[in-house]
């Protein structure tokens, strides 16, 4: 109980004093996660739409694989990305290890299956509604996917928010590929792991509270921007 109170106090203190380090790692967390999310959505949403409208032989296998990849342990992703980006690995020449870019790469791999899978489910249901109409109107495959992407946008927001939640709270992979370097790759979650390791629970908890607050603000903000739950169910 005392630790919880201390954590709240610490979070409050860091926020009101606009703690410079806190602002830095918070902004870095946001930058890394939002970049990864943007790329994941760019890939995952059309992929979900494509899987919804396209019937091909390996479709079920692809969907099953995608759903399995959601459960991929981040630490394993981190390790594999590390092995690729390590100086002695195949992509070592790029010199990306221990940079925010490496963290973005790991997060993209972690959240794209999740984003694509939720997007697929939403658009599959919409597709069963729209199927006859779009076929009748002779829409091309691209037009079908775009129509689903537009009209399922509320559900796709959920997909993006799920991806955001998973990425912003992820620590295992980015610890390995980012290295938690102070001033370069330290983000909220790795800082929390560090402070927990040091036994400074108040600071760790304070950072955790800020992380949760951030996730809430992003969720509220995007729902507000999309005006979900305001104009009926569609």
């Amino acid at each position, binding site marked *: 109980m005392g630790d919880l109170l201390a954590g709240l106090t610490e979070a409050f203190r860091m926020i009101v004093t606009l703690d410079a380090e806190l602002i830095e790692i918070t902004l870095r967390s946001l930058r890394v996660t939002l970049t990864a999310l943007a790329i994941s959505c760019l890939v995952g949403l059309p992929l979900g739409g494509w899987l919804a409208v396209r019937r091909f032989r390996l479709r079920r296998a692809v969907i099953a694989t995608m759903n399995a990849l959601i459960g991929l342990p981040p630490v394993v992703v981190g390790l594999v990305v590390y092995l690729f980006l390590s100086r002695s690995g195949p992509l070592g020449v790029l010199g990306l290890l221990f940079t925010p870019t490496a963290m973005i790469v790991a997060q993209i791999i972690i959240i794209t299956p999740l984003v694509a899978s939720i997007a697929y489910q939403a658009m599959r249901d919409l597709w069963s509604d729209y199927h*006859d109409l779009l076929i*009748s*109107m002779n829409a091309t495959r691209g037009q079908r996917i775009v129509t689903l992407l537009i009209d399922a946008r509320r559900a796709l927001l959920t997909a993006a928010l799920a991806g955001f939640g998973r990425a912003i709270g992820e620590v295992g992979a980015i610890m390995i590929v980012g290295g938690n370097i102070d001033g370069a790759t330290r983000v909220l979650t790795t800082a929390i792991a560090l402070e927990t390791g040091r036994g400074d629970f108040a600071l760790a908890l304070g950072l955790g509270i800020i992380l949760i607050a951030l996730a809430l603000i992003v969720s509220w903000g995007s729902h507000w921007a999309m005006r979900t739950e305001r104009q009926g169910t569609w």
Partner: protein
Amino acid sequence: MVAALPLTLTGATLRRQGKTLIGPVDLTLGRIGVTVVIGPNGSGKTSLLRMMHGLQRTADGHVGWSVADAIARERQAYVFQRPIALRRSVLANLMFPLRLRGASRAQAEARARAIADRFDLTAMLAQPAPSLSGGEMQRLALARALITEPEILFADEPCAALDGRATRQIEALLAGTAAAGTRLVMATHDMGQARRLASDVIFLLHGRIHETGPAKTFFAAPATPEAEAFLNGDIVE
């Protein structure tokens, strides 16, 4: 512009899970007129319309247009028995088919507003389409189908579940459309409506054309006892 019609069905057959739903059907649809498809529930009216429109692939036989299939596709429109509303505003629903064909936003909007006026939809242009009433939804579906000025319109029970006033409104719009030169193929359960609109009749029974002919002769003197019974409102097995 070369006309897509006439449409010719030769031995066209539709099967599902080993069951023959339609056919074999031999039929020619000319360039003008209103063909009304009637028959008991489950006789295959919807299936026949969908097969003609190309939504269902034939298992046997052939559905042939006078132009290449790709061109024919562009000249048709379909109004479904259960209307499908895009989860957008009424205006966006109307603009949609034009936008698919590459019309600019401004062009599409101008034409959408014009057709909305004719179909009495102007007041609800900004409303989400899924929130329309049944009658309004049918008007929207019809307007959206006609905005591309198709050569032929398939309408599957466009007045089902509408009250008398709404039915009259839709009928007037359909009659106007046919008068303007659009070929109409329509399924209905409303014999009054069939009499008012039809130039030809197709009477379906068990997935086959049981009787067909000009509306006048069909309604005045049906050739088969089943058709006569159906017109009398008896149950036809």
